[in-house]
Structures are given as structure tokens and as C-alpha cells.
């Protein structure tokens, strides 16, 4: 998107809502912003109906702040709580049938490559754990097998949040949830490992307790997806409502998970690493 498109025509500026003007004046479209800059610029997500203390909302906020080029970023979603925040975000956001996200993203990315051969249009899938690991697993893996140049971000709250707290494939073993009345019978689906096996060039696992890492990881994932191949970020974003802890405990839960079973992990394929070294050096990135 060229800046011309969002720049208000002087004569009509006063007709535009304040929010829009703020986005133009202080948003991340004209001047590059990152997670580090939060609190000092107008974020592209606005007032969403997520529960108080929602880890997923926080996760999305951090991811959105980390987008390297929001003005050319397209978000593909799917039903799930993430819908609420993403529908309130000043980016093209699409959400159709549950689990189809990586198939939709494949078609979209290819069409954008046809229509804008000289531009990077970053197609980013951002959806829940259920959407990726359960109903959408086939489409997720096949987009990776096919080496689609898209970034897939799992907002892993270890439960079906939006439909009221049912077991997800990413729920922890033994956890009692709706539709798992006697506790979940199998461990978290190893999507991180599957991603490595299935052709992802960059795979990272991180929690909302590490906001700056999120910024870095998202940037890497998107840049690598532009040039090398599919990338995957698994973000732990606990759900106070359905995992039934107090809303002010969300970060504590994330921090404990980070120590306990959700450590930061990063996998970079050789070609991705080479590419990354090049761009991060050029940008002076990667030191943070």
C-alpha cells in the first residue's frame, strides 16, 4: 500500500474519525515501529471485546506491533477468539470457515505474487491452536509441504476459547475441560516438531511473557517467508476465562509455562539462516 492511499485529502480531513487521523499521524504505516515502541505510537488494533486479561489479545497486540511492514500485511484468520481483536485492526483481515486459513492464505499469496510481482505482500495467518492443530492440520501441513511463502502464527491458549472452553489438541495432557470430562488423554500435539519435519524454514516457540522476543521472532518469520519459505511461530497466550485463573494472573501463567514446558525455542534452516544474517546485518537488526 502506498502511503498516498491513506493520506487524507486536506479538504476532507475534518470529516474523518479521530482514530483514522491518529493512525495516519502516529501509526506504524508511515514510520516503522516495533514492539519496543509500544506506548509511543498509535497501534493498529483498537478496543476489542476480548475478556479482561486475555492472553490472546495481548499476544496479538505484540505480534501486530512486530509486523515489519503493516501497510502491506494481510492477515488471514479463522473463527476463534482472535477474530474479535483482528476484526478491530486496521489491516485487511479475512475470516471465513474454521480451519481453512492456510489454504486461503496459499491462494491469496500466490495471487498477490501475480498481481504485485515487485512488492512484498506479507500474508500472515494468525489463529488459535484449535484452528491450526485440530480442524486445520491438513491445510497447515500441506501449505508447509508446498513451501508456500506465508507465516503461520498459532495463538496457543491450550483450549477452544471462543466456543467456551473445550479440549483442544494443544491442551495439556490430563487437563479436565469441556468435552474432556475425565481429562485429556494425550499430550499437546507436537506442532513445533511437525513444522520442522514438514518444510518450515523458520520455527519459533515463545510466550507472551517475552514481549521483545515476540517482536524479534515475528520479524524474522515474516522476512524469511518473503524470500525462503514457510515459517511458523507458536505463541503461548493463556486464556484466563477458560483455563479458569484470575485475569491478573495471565502473565504469571505464561512465565511459569516458559520455565516449565514452554521454553523459547527457535529453528532456522540453513538457507533461512544465511538470508537472515544478510538482512539483519543490513538492518542492524538481530542484536536485541
Amino acid at each position: 500500500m502506498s502511503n498516498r492511499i491513506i493520506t487524507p485529502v486536506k479538504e476532507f480531513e475534518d470529516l474523518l474519525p479521530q482514530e483514522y487521523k491518529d493512525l495516519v499521524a502516529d501509526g506504524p504505516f508511515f514510520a516503522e515501529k516495533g514492539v519496543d515502541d509500544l506506548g509511543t505510537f498509535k497501534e493498529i488494533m483498537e478496543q476489542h471485546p476480548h475478556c479482561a486479561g486475555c492472553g490472546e489479545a495481548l499476544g496479538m497486540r505484540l505480534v501486530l506491533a512486530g509486523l515489519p511492514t503493516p501497510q502491506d500485511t494481510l492477515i488471514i484468520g479463522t473463527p476463534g477468539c482472535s477474530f474479535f481483536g483482528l476484526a478491530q485492526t486496521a489491516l485487511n483481515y479475512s475470516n471465513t470457515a474454521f480451519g481453512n486459513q492456510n489454504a486461503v492464505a496459499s491462494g491469496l499469496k500466490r495471487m498477490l505474487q501475480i498481481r504485485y510481482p515487485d512488492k512484498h505482500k506479507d500474508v500472515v495467518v494468525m489463529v488459535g491452536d484449535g484452528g491450526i492443530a485440530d480442524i486445520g492440520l491438513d491445510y497447515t501441513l500441506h501449505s508447509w509441504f508446498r513451501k508456500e511463502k506465508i507465516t503461520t502464527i498459532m495463538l496457543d491458549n491450550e483450549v477452544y476459547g471462543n466456543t467456551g472452553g473445550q479440549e483442544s489438541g494443544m491442551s495439556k495432557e490430563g487437563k479436565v475441560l469441556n468435552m474432556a470430562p475425565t481429562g485429556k488423554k494425550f499430550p499437546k500435539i507436537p506442532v513445533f516438531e511437525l513444522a520442522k519435519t514438514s518444510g518450515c524454514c523458520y520455527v519459533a516457540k515463545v510466550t507472551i511473557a517475552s514481549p521483545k522476543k515476540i517482536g524479534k521472532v515475528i520479524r524474522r518469520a515474516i522476512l524469511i517467508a518473503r524470500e525462503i519459505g514457510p515459517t511458523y511461530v507458536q505463541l503461548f497466550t493463556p486464556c484466563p476465562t477458560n483455563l479458569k485463573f484470575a485475569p491478573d494472573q495471565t502473565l504469571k501463567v505464561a512465565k511459569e509455562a516458559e520455565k516449565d514446558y514452554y521454553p523459547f525455542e527457535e529453528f532456522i534452516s540453513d538457507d533461512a539462516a544465511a538470508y537472515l544474517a544478510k538482512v539483519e546485518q543490513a538492518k542492524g537488526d538481530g542484536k536485541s
Partner: protein
Amino acid sequence: MNIEQKNVSPEHILFEAPRDKAFITGSEAVAEAVKRANIDMSIAYPITPQSESMHLIGDLYAQGYIKDYYRAENEFAVMAAVHGASLGGGRVFTATSGPGTLRAAEMFPVWAGSRQPIVCGFMCRGISLPPSIQPENIEMTFLLDSGMLMFHAENAQDFFDMILKGYAIAEKPDVHLPVGVFVDGFFTTHTREIVMLPPEDIRLSPYDPKCSPVPAFDMETPPMRVVRDPLLNKSNFISYAANASWHQEILAAAERSKKYINHYMNGLIEVDNPKAKILIAASGTAVAQSREAIRDLQAEGIDVGLIKVKSIRPFPEKEIQAATENAEIIIVPEFNAGGWLAREIKASLDHNSRVISAPRIFGGMPMPKELIVNEVKHAIKKRA
């Protein structure tokens, strides 16, 4: 691409360009249409009897007529990816059959809901158990309220034309709805017959995503958040009303498409011998078989007319009412167990005891003209 193609209007390609005779299958007719449709992208998944068409479209890709093409992991993925590609602002084509149609059923209303001018071929076949890959158009009954426009081709010629006409109609800014072009699988896909084709060196002008009621999904329009609250999950009369009016607009767009269907397809129905007291009303291959039956019946001195229903959605209620004004017997032969066309026709006509829902053929059988002839004679006898 071994030939240079010139972009032309649908009117030129459909009405003005000279045509040459080809002796080809329905599957080849699909590829000939796609070759001239200036498709950006096509995504395939095999299923009999659709596969040959999508093989040929793969060849078109290899030859440079199409810019991207791949085999997806299943039909739901195909329809989702085609949806994504269309969101991206280009022209797309795909096709499927029977179980594939049902596997992807959820996506068709999504296309309509997204107002996407996708054209999809449906090479209808048996579904369910016992397994059957043979002709049957039962899958069409599953899509009657999907929001898609639905055209039913009689033969390879129709199939060729309706695909191109489908784009012309679907892409009108006041329509912008997906079009399903249906044929009876095998009968049309696998029969080699005479098809008149315009030259290879012309094609439709490219799709213009700017002439759309919904902007392309490419971050090239100001990305304001649209609503204070997302439409979903709200007990919010504004959201209900928005949803309802959006769907009403889909129905309205289908209504508006009628004028273009009339223009490009020469009517939603086609009537032969409208004054006959006995009419056969049919769609798809049943039309072809009816033509044979009518030839025999006329030869025996029994005057029988024909209503060919070309557009199933929008359904030509008024047109059929008018065409059947004088009819005393209306025979509706069909290739499915449900009898959905007869149901539609009955629902459209006052005094529908005139409508006879037979012969109804399924399980893969052909429909010998003799069956239709007998049905007509039987109806005459009963009435007398």
C-alpha cells in the same frame, strides 16, 4: 503460450467472433473455455469425472495461459484456496464432482457471502453409498440455497459457452456472485461431440478488481476498521440487520443477474414449440434425451414441446409460469433420486398437478428416449 491472445469483450467472444467446428469431449470444451477466459489462477483436485478437465487446465498452465496452478490437498482446500486467490483480486477457475462438491460444501456459501465472481465447474456424479462414480446430479440439490448462480449445461457446447458467460455475468459489478456451471458428468464430460469454438487468439479482458462491490484484499485500499464491534457474536440488532441485509443483497444480486443471463444466455429458459399442450421441462442431459424423445413422439404425431431450464439459480419462476400457461401435461425427467427440478417447477406453478416428476433416473443409468416417450404416452392415457 504458443499464441498471442488479444483481450476482447465477452460480447465479441460470444456473439461476434467466427466459430469453427471441433469434435471434442466436454472436458476439452472446459479447457477451451478456460483458455479463452484469461484466468489468473486455477487449483485442482482429482475426482472422476472432473479430472480430465483439470488435467487439461494444468496443461494450459504449463503452456502459459494461466499464471499459477497447483493440486491442492482436497476439495475443501481447493475451494478455500480459490476463495483466497479471488480475494486477492484475480480471476480463478476450478471444478469438482459429487463427493468433492459435498466435501467443500461449506465454502460455496462463503464465496457468495464474499461476493466473489468465481466460476466453478461441477461435473455431477453419484454420491453416497453404494459407491458410484457414474452420472447423477443429486449434488445440485445441496447447493440450491448456497447463494451461487447455477447454470445447467445440456452438452459440451453449453459447457463451453456457459463458462465464458459465467464470467461475464458473475463479474458485473451489480452481480458479483459465484457461478456454478453444472453438467451431468460423463454424459457431457466424456462424450465427444461437435462444439463450435471461437478462435484461440482472443480471450476475455482481464478481471478488474476495482469494479467490485467489495474491495480486493490487497492492502491497497485504506484499511480502516469497519465497525466499532465485530459483527459476529453479538446480540446486536445492528449486526443482525447488517447480516440480514447482506444476505438480502446476495439474493437481490441474483435477481439483478437475470438481465445479464437474458443478454448472454438468451434467456433463463429456452422454449421449443411453446403451444404444445404437452411439455417436457428439463435441464442438463435430460434435455438432450428429451430432444430425442420429442423427435420420436412428433414422428408418431404426438405434439410435444420442450422447456430447457438453463438457469437453476436464479430460478426462472416467472418464465416457466408464462411458458406453461397452456400446458396440460408437464413431464420433468431427471437424473437424480430426489426430483429436485420437479419440486422447483411445482413450487413455481399454480395448478401443479400438471407436473409429472418422471422418469427419474439414478445409479448411473442412461435415460433411453424410450422411457420419456412412454412417460408421455402414459400421461396422455391417464388424462384421457
